[in-house]
């Protein structure tokens, strides 16, 4: 993982056409893809949980949201940092940005839900919200896009002509970030499982103490 990250920074100096700021692109694009992928994982895991009632899937769904919200935050921060010098605005209400913002809110709502409901219903309710939230994403995207076509579009969507080395860089960065994402996700899942195991053991010990 570290190796992959290091690779980005070795390759990156090759591209200096737009200045240092442009390099954020290598973080921004993969993060965006992963933010949406994470929620897709949550969607599938939620459905599997409701179907199989195996708490393993609930753990996957929940960890995917936590990982996803991190990447989504990265997207929302790197976006404006990149946009300001280039387009001279911090924010536009274009479909992609706005949908990502709504996605971020959906993530946060999911996490708030998990914090407030009782343990025995937590998995069920989170799964339902995970499903509803994900289905809402494409619908939101289309309605915002429809909305934007009616208003004059201030900034046209970005279309780059990327030179060869830049494309390679992007690909590597992309792979590196995917790798990073899955590493974080897996460690988070492992951490969660250990936590659950520890609490189970605590409970067993507690009961044994009562018996004495």
């Amino acid at each position: 993982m570290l190796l992959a990250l290091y690779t980005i920074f070795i390759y990156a100096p090759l591209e200096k056409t737009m200045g240092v700021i442009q390099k954020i692109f290598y973080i921004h694009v993969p993060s965006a893809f992963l933010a949406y992928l994470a929620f897709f994982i949550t969607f599938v895991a939620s459905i599997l949980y409701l179907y199989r009632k195996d708490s393993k899937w609930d753990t996957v769904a929940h960890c995917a949201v936590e990982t996803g919200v991190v990447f989504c935050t990265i997207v929302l921060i790197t976006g404006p940092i990149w946009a300001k010098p280039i387009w001279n605005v911090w924010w536009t209400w274009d479909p992609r940005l706005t949908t990502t913002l709504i996605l971020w809110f959906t993530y946060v709502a999911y996490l708030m839900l998990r914090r407030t409901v009782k343990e025995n219903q937590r998995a069920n309710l989170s799964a339902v919200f995970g499903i509803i939230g994900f289905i809402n994403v494409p619908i939101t995207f289309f309605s915002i896009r429809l909305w934007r076509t009616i208003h004059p579009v201030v900034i046209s969507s970005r279309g780059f002509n990327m030179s060869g080395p830049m494309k390679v860089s992007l690909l590597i960065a992309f792979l590196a970030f995917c790798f990073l994402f899955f590493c974080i996700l897996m460690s988070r899942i492992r951490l969660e499982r250990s936590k659950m195991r520890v609490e189970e053991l605590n409970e067993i010990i507690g009961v044994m103490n009562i018996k004495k």
Partner: protein
Amino acid sequence: MNSEHYIEAKGLTKKFGYKTALRNIDIFLEQGDSLVLFGPNGAGKSTLIQALCSLLQPTSGSIRIAGYEAQRDREALHQIIGYIGHQTFLYPHLTAYENLKFYGAMYAVAGLNERIPEVLGLVGLSRYRNDIVQSFSRGMQQRLSIGRAIIHDPMIMFLDEPFTGLDQQGSEDFIKLILQFRDRGKTVIMASHHLHLGIELCDRVAILKSGRIVYLQDVARIPKNDFKRIYSQHVGENAPALKVA
């Protein structure tokens, strides 16, 4: 078919987060049986009753009642169950009559127009049929709750400390009701703190402690007046002061 019991719980476990309320409980009852559950507070009596009547889903284990499983045959199962719990399930802004009319409609009771006055009479609330439940005393609400639970003439009654709030007359009426119920071959499962009453009304006894059944016996096999001692023995020094009226 192999010997399938009328009410069958196998390996029933219920956890709330990491707290285990019921541990690996097995219960086998036939139609017409009556079981009373005793145990200290927090033993899991209410949890067990709620799990059996499908208000709670077991964390693991299986429950079959009259051949029905909770999720698969939900409506059929609910049709034959009556439940009285800590909450009355009554709508405060509706009258006694309207509450019974609502539950009667939900349970698709035939001949509801005759059944409601009949039930009101059974629980001694005929005079209050058009009064808003909010104006009822706790005892009256409990009576109406009993009416609500029996309106569809269920095959099985799940009772969780049903005598709470009832006055002397109310308790006597309810005892009569349970005995009538049993005479007609219905099944009763009751959780109670009243040792004496419980043994009078039911023919099997179970004592629950920390989510386990620590004692299960037919009432007929218990020596008279010995039960209080047996109870203290199983529950230990931390047994609360029980009502033996």
